């Protein structure tokens, strides 16, 4: 069975792009519109990897990462955050919260797949 990857982003176009790229590469994808939505959906699905934006309404990416890592079943999953160049501080916060890696926006589908290959078995 193919792996389920969650993309959490408030931007529909980013979600769509991530979704499309991952499906092309043979992954299953579940979308979440913000951190809160992600947390709810994570409980009802078994996700192998999380790709999350940092700036999101309701619950931002850093808090999401922190809460995901606190869940026993998600302690060891790879979490990739999407950052922009100007967010070095945010990136550090995300890492401190338990993110595995990051992708700098803007990114190309190939870069996304390259990072996934790096962290997801």
């Amino acid at each position, binding site marked *: 069975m193919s792996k389920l990857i969650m993309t959490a982003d408030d931007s529909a*176009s980013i979600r*769509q792009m991530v979704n499309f790229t991952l499906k092309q590469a043979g992954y299953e994808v579940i979308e979440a519109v913000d951190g809160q939505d992600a947390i709810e959906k994570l409980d009802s699905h078994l996700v192998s990897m999380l790709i999350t934006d940092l700036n999101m*309404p309701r619950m931002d990416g850093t808090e999401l990462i922190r809460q995901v890592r606190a869940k026993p079943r998600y302690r060891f999953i790879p979490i990739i955050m999407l950052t922009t*160049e100007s967010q070095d501080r945010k990136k550090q916060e995300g890492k401190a919260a*338990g993110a595995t890696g990051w992708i700098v*926006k803007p990114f190309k589908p190939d870069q996304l797949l390259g990072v996934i290959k790096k*962290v997801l078995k």
Partner: protein
Amino acid sequence: MSESNRFMDAYRQEAEELLSEIEQAILDIEDDPEDREAVNRLFRCMHTIKGSGSMFGFDAIAEFTHHVETVLDKVRAGLVPVSKRLIDLVLASRDQIMMMLNETEGHQKPDTGTRQKIIESLNAMLFESENDKTLSAEKDIGRPPSFDTTQGKDMTYRIRFRPNREIFSRGMDPALLLDELREMGDCSIMAHTDGIPSIEKLDPESCYLYWDIILVTAKGINAVRDIFIFVEDDCDIRIDIVEAAEQNVEEPVPRLGEILVERGDVIPETVTKALSEQKKIGELLVDSGSVSRGKVESALIEQQRLEKQRLSARVGTVRVPSDRLDKLVNLVGELVITQARLSQVSADMNHAELVNPVEEIERLTTELRDSVLNIRMMPIGTTFSKFRRLVRDLSAELGKDIALITEGAETELDKTVIERLDDPLVHMIRNCIDHGIEPPAERKKKNKPETGTIRLAAAHKGANVVITIEDDGIGLDPDAIRLKAIEKGLIPKEAELTEKEILSRIFAPGFSTSEKITNLSGRGVGMDVVKKTIESLRGTVDVSSVKGKGTCITLKLPLTLAIINGLLVTIGDSYYVLPLATVEECTELTKEDVEKAHGANIMNVRGEIVPYVRLRDHFEMKENKPDLEHIVIADVYDKRIGFVVDHVVGGHQTVIKSLGPAFKGVKDVSGATILGDGTVALILDVNALV
């Protein structure tokens, strides 16, 4: 609609929603300048517009929004106060972005003037905020793209990767990083286990291992560093360049002690002391406890790596004209013959002092023969690569979509064989492209993938190399071939032939004519030439095909043309050689065996019925028939066939001499060889004898 257009539309829609949200937020802020939540919302929206914009090709929007975002970031941090001017500017920016969105749809001309003015005002606002010193000091997350001198040539890297104990809880699996390193080049990885505590202290969720990696790659040090990009901040990673591949070949490879010191695993004094005790340095260092056994072993791996690389660098190549090589092979051939004679003379004399040096010479000659023949061996891949181009050009010309898959390119064959194989292979591959594989439309109709495949594979099989050319095209039509063959008078009209026999007619001379390409399934153009060439190399050609599914042509070629291992046998007074590679066993054929078979040429070998050929009858030799005959069982076309001879003498280094043009028509003999005493022995072609 193409994918990228779909994304662009999605973006446009989303951006419009965001822009109206921005409007809401900024108006909220106007009402209540202390509304932090509204400021955050505003920032997030701008941020998303910028981020997604650059991803879907709206670079101008991304660039412009970046300026707004920078200011809003300061507002969020309380560095820029909320003012009427700010609110006006943000609203103007919003309108500007809206316009830019429409511009890309071609509704309006770009209005760069207003845009520039807004950017200037935004920048001015930043300058005014005195606190802001870090405005342009935006950190570039990526590494500066400086020129990487380590790229493009093979370099050896020594990497020590000591992950943070907590690495697993970050969702990172170090094994994946090691895998990534392995993909980069020639890589040795040594795991160190000395950090693992005793079981009661071991935390199963921590990573205690660390690794030493020796990597040879041409991808450059930045590419190596990039692998560790997610972990470099909290893991201990050391990457050193050990040696450039071509660098000073003359210098000795560093010693184990030197490597350990360079890695910082031991100090130089320890090494010197260890050396003075004149024991194996690695053993000593481990014994003295200054370094763990694992570290020494890992350093040893590095040393071996370097030696290997040095060696390959030092070896280099020498170009030699092939006629010199041929001469060398001939000389070795003569030497082998002379040596055989010497051995025989020595055996006859039975001189105690002579036996040893003669045996020595025999050993050396064999070694020499093998080395010389090895020189002539070349990987067949050199020819394979030519075909890629052929397939590409020809299929484009014919409007077909064909992929060439090659396997076993590293299979080695005698240079002469490879050279002479060139034309037949080109011919057969052309046939595949031309007549075998259908045009894409036709393939689609037949439920085949539109891309046709030609598989060109080479592999060793015993003393032979088997080359297969396989396509998934229309295959051969036995009925059509049969009709054609009858028409050409190649088979009698009433002949009952198996499918295999019919298919083999495509190799018959005169079968092919150019006009038949169009009206027959179209193989066999000059296939007789192919067969002739392969047979002149002492090889065989075989064809199999499933109509509609594809065709497979198999070539079986001897490894070398010059010297083979043979089995020497006698019939009457004559000597014969059977290629040892085909021989499976030798056994006796007694009179009782013959009687039991009631005249049929079959024999029971351990319960298995083996047909045999009586060479004595075959060559019509009547006199001196011994009571006890011998039978040599050989593998012919994957069947066990016996050959009855008088005596089996034994193994023999057979230097093949061709028989010359006068004996061209002789079928059962593929050549001759000269024995130790000067007698000529004929080499039997077992395939032809059956």
